[in-house]
């Protein structure tokens, strides 16, 4: 492409104003802001490399080199941008060429260059500018609680849980059901599932909120459509070995056993392993009774406590950012109804992004959920970008 354009340039060096006479679309000003941010970063790179000492003697050099290395993809994107821009100008010059075939070729070339420039500015460069999320590598703790709708809510909870376990399986995440309470009329009243694997939290965090189902329950004889809900809470899973120490001090955690045991010891051989933790500063309590060993219940309860505190820390950080930067990042309000599964219409609608998939079974039993997650992640990335632009 490059050599072709150069050849044309030699034929007709005239310059045309055609390209810049395009009408301004709303995305133009956004793109301009994106490019301003990139330009700033490139200037910063120049400053950094000019500050490097000749013999690399200072320790600050190492930091500078590291920063330069990290921003190399930005430089590459900038170089590609300027190159494409230049080619575009050169091509534009050919619009007034006397040869009709040449003009047609130039037009074609111009279109293809415009397309790559647009995708460079609207998707590639923003993805480089968005700071990496600190939660990228975290695993997730998935909590499901039946809401309104009685038994039907529990039946739907079991469906949702299968949907998540299937997704985890296809993403090669390792799952284990930490606790689960069956409903006597069928289904599951509540469940706690550990989802271990890279990116599990990053993908599943958008599932937090109220999921609503509209269908005729299997238990309903009259064929009337019921509406029930299940609440989903996705927490970041913090491993014991992670820097969890900073999350709480052991002195702040009250550990209680759940029942009176009489004389205890040799006098009693009943299994009473339930444990409750209370984190005094936040008032968070975690109860665990699913294991036969008190020791194991305690370990699991601490895992959940760490997740809750980590979640609290993340939401607090988001709130702080919002307070300082007028962030447009949406709140993760867990009482908010986020999605509806309508069986009669065979559709699933996500209310946050207004996305509807007309194939309900593909969401519950196929790849449909991944489509929602992709769309939600993209939406999030855009709002982070908006946030960055408005802070500019």
């Amino acid at each position, binding site marked *: 492409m490059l050599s072709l354009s150069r050849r044309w340039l030699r034929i007709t060096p005239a310059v045309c104003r055609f390209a810049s006479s395009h009408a301004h679309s709303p995305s133009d000003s956004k793109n301009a802001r994106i490019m301003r941010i990139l330009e700033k970063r490139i200037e910063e790179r120049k400053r950094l490399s000019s500050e490097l000492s000749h013999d690399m003697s200072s320790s600050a050099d190492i930091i500078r080199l590291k920063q330069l290395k990290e921003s190399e993809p930005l430089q590459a994107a900038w170089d590609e941008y300027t190159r494409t821009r230049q080619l575009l100008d050169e091509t534009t010059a050919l619009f007034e060429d006397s040869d009709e075939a040449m003009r047609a070729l130039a037009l074609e070339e111009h279109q293809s260059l415009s397309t790559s420039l647009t995708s460079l500015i609207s998707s590639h460069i923003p993805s480089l500018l968005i700071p990496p999320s600190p939660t990228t590598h975290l695993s997730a703790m998935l909590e499901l609680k039946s809401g309104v709708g009685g038994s039907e809510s529990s039946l739907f909870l079991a469906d949702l849980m299968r949907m998540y376990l299937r997704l985890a399986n296809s993403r090669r995440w390792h799952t284990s059901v930490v606790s689960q309470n069956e409903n006597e009329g069928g289904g599951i009243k509540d469940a706690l599932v550990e989802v271990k694997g890279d990116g599990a939290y990053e993908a599943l965090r958008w599932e937090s909120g109220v999921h609503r189902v509209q269908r005729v329950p299997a238990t309903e004889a009259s064929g009337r459509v019921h509406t029930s809900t299940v609440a989903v809470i996705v927490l970041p899973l913090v491993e014991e070995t992670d820097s969890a120490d900073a999350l709480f001090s052991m002195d702040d955690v009250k550990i209680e056993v759940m029942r009176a045991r009489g*004389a*205890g*010891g040799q*006098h009693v051989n*009943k299994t009473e392993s339930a444990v409750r933790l209370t984190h005094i500063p936040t008032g968070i309590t975690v109860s665990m009774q699913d294991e036969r060993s008190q*020791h194991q219940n305690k370990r699991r309860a601490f895992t959940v406590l760490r997740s809750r505190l980590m979640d609290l820390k993340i939401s607090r950080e988001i709130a702080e950012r919002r307070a300082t930067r007028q962030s447009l990042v949406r709140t993760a309000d867990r009482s908010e109804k986020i999605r509806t599964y309508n069986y009669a219409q065979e559709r699933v609608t996500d209310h946050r992004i207004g996305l509807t998939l007309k194939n309900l079974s593909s969401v519950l039993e196929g790849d449909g959920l991944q489509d929602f997650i992709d769309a939600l992640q993209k939406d999030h990335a855009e709002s982070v970008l908006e946030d960055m632009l408005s802070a500019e």
Partner: protein
Amino acid sequence: MASKLLSILATSLGPTQARLELKWMQQQARHPAQLTEMVTRRSRGEPLQYILGSQPFGPLNLLTRPPVLIPRPETEHWVIKLADRTSASPTSPKSLLDLGTGSGCIPLLLCHLLPQGSLRTHGVDISPQALDLAKENAAVCGIPPSSPGSCARNTRNTFTATLGNFLDPMFSEDATIDPPYDIITCNPPYIPWHEYLKLPRSVTAYEDPKALFGGPTGLDFYHAIAHLVRQTNFIRPGAVVALEVGHNQAQDVERIMRVHAHVRDTEIWPDPWGKQRTVLAHL
């Protein structure tokens, strides 16, 4: 069918406990008939741990078999605490004697929790059934016996067990034990006679009375231990004696250790339910 089994269990256990226990049985039962049998046995008062054949103890999963005493959560709690308080390393390994070892739970958990090569444990019990189970548990937990007579340092923590009666006044001369020790642990039978009638059937009808009854006052075995501790060269200076006690015996046992074993430094640890459960004597 599950709801029928649940209601059978709920009659004797209450609804919450019944749901939990049914779930644990379901996780283990290989077919419906086995589950029904488990529920029937449980509703007759058999301990859940004997029906399932195991009991978690710290990170270990120990085998349980009648009539050997089922490891209790109170014991699990103080043994983990003892492990936290014990400084042992391969360069200064420690030697431990567990009196009335039963399932082997105390020395096995300590072997599991302390650094490898830092602990050599030996359990004695008067019951051959207990010894068999303790050795099986050691195998299940991957804890090897130490090679007898060899002075060579073990690279792993070890467990051995022999038949023995520590009520016998000549016990310290027993050829199968190898004093002096750095740590003595014991969960001796401590239930006094007058409390026998108040015990649940799941205890009296299934667990070994020899592991439960500590004489008229429940204190017989503590006197025997005090006698042992006083023997010359039975324990090393700086040794620790950790004794589990019944719900109202801590003061009595502390006095026995101070008066009869001449120990000046003692402490009492509560269990998670707030009962004074363990008496520690520091020599």
